[in-house]
């Protein structure tokens, strides 16, 4: 596999709770390269290592071995808050990505300074405020008139849309989406997903999106990977995705893993 790429994961290994009955190998030699502009959807059963892979990239924990390169930079040992300069992140839990006790504009202002030195200048400027209002109006959620509202008062969908906007406000080298629509109702999920594609397309972002919805996984992005027991077992390019159906995907999974794809959370339609 090529050394070059926006993101290069080389032989990532991670075992949680080693030496205990809870021992769990979450990443078992994950190797993956993303080219600039790749929008990769990630699918797999429960405990396949999808979220663990994203969290390893984000630096939520240190991996046991392997290396992580972003734009040619080795970020393997960088602490989580230092990697934030390059990464945009949206979590499964809508409460995770925003500060509930702060208002909308303060959250956006924090995100606008992601990874930058924070000094003693005033935390938000007038020109930012109008730019935020403009960006919020594109969400079509009426948030542009609620800049001063506490984020804790927003619905899950509104918070997730806001988190998405925050993650892309300062263009990230890589956008990490960890089942970010899983906790939303179907209608809201669809809206947030549409916004996701739009933001990725408009900003030309490189993105990794974990989803449990096989249909979404095939419909979105230019590449789909399937994970199983801490490894990437299937890698489909844009052309392969076009002809692939959910049934094909299930068959491919059985072939590659030797198992039935048993996952009650997986949406097949």
């Amino acid at each position, binding site marked *: 596999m090529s050394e070059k790429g926006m993101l290069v994961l080389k032989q990532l290994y991670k075992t949680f709770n080693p030496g205990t009955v809870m021992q769990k190998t979450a990443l078992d030699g994950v190797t993956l390269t993303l080219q600039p502009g790749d929008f990769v959807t990630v699918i797999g059963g429960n405990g396949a290592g999808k979220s663990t892979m994203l969290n390893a990239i984000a630096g939520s924990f240190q991996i046991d071995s392997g290396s992580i390169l972003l734009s040619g930079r080795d970020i393997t040992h960088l602490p989580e*808050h230092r990697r934030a*300069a390059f990464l945009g*992140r949206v979590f499964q839990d809508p409460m995770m990505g925003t500060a509930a*006790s*702060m208002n909308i504009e303060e959250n956006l202002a*924090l995100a606008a*300074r992601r990874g930058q030195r924070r000094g003693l200048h*005033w*935390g938000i400027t007038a020109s930012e405020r109008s730019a935020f209002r403009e960006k919020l109006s594109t969400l079509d959620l009426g948030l542009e008139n609620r800049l001063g509202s506490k984020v804790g008062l927003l619905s899950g969908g509104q918070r997730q849309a806001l988190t998405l906007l925050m993650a892309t406000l300062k263009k990230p080298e890589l956008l990490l989406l960890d089942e970010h629509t899983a906790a939303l109702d179907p209608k809201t999920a669809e809206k947030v997903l549409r916004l996701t594609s739009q933001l990725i397309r408009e900003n030309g972002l490189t993105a990794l999106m974990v989803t449990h919805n096989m249909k979404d996984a095939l419909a979105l992005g230019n590449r789909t990977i399937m994970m199983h027991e801490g490894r990437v077992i299937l890698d489909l390019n844009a052309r392969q995705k076009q002809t692939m159906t959910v049934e094909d995907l299930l068959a491919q999974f059985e072939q590659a893993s030797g198992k039935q794809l048993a996952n009650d959370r997986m949406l097949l339609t």
Partner: protein
Amino acid sequence: MNITQLLNQLPGAAAQGLIWGIMAIGVYITFRILDTADLTVDGSFATGGAVAAILITSGVHPLLATAIAFLAGLLAGLITGVLHTGMGIPAILAGILTQLALYSINLRIQGLGTDLGSRANVPLSINKYKNMLVSLRNVGSFSIENPIWLMLLITVVLIGIMYWFFGTEYGCGLRAVGSNQQMARAQGISTGRGKIVGLMISNGLVAFSGALMAQYQGFSDVSMGRGAIVIGLAAVIIGEVIFGKLFRNFALKLLAVSLGAIIYYLVIQVVLWLGLNTDDLKLLTALVVALFLAMPYWKSHMAARRMKGGKPVV
């Protein structure tokens, strides 16, 4: 029960409330903004008093002595912060450890220059050190000497500084750490460093308040900070209960904390006047704080019950 006796006590209570109000603003920073209960304050309050007292008695100008007391408080906060974030000790335990250690340290500070090398009490007579910033001697007068004026000025300036600081990029980052650590890290903010800085500022203010209290009461005592955290919490909670609906702005919230401390001392003065034994004061304070801390829990409990009953929650 003589009402003039009570009225004579009120200015003193207000002055004490203003001084403790600064301490309570320090508590507000950790308890409300950083969302951690920091018990260092019982120790750092006395540290502030000890440092100021020992410096003033050795001829340092009280203004400089008070400033150095503030620095000593920063250091106390730094120690708790490192125990917590650098050594993985739970915040509440880290604070207790620092507080305990400070008891010995405070005895040593107060003992500087004495034969024994440790001392429980340092007298600070206003007759001897005439340029002390505040003193209870003038608290009944209407002159500019009345410590209430200076305390009001200090409180207003302090609230202004805090309002500015927590509105800056850095201050907003600290608030994010207190609100959602995962989000803070995802925005590139070091939560460990943020907590340390927050604990330092908080304890700096607490020690500053202790330095003023030592000058006001005319002595520094190693146990002057006992129960300080509870008084601080009482001020925060009284302020929130009375002014919470009214004061939305951050500066006004801090003002509410200071007012909470004043109200606390006025109420204490009244219950003492009504005949409560001074020895029972801490018990009363603890009960009141426990009651107010329980209120939001009870409220949510009752709301949940109403939900179960199928009745709409208003």
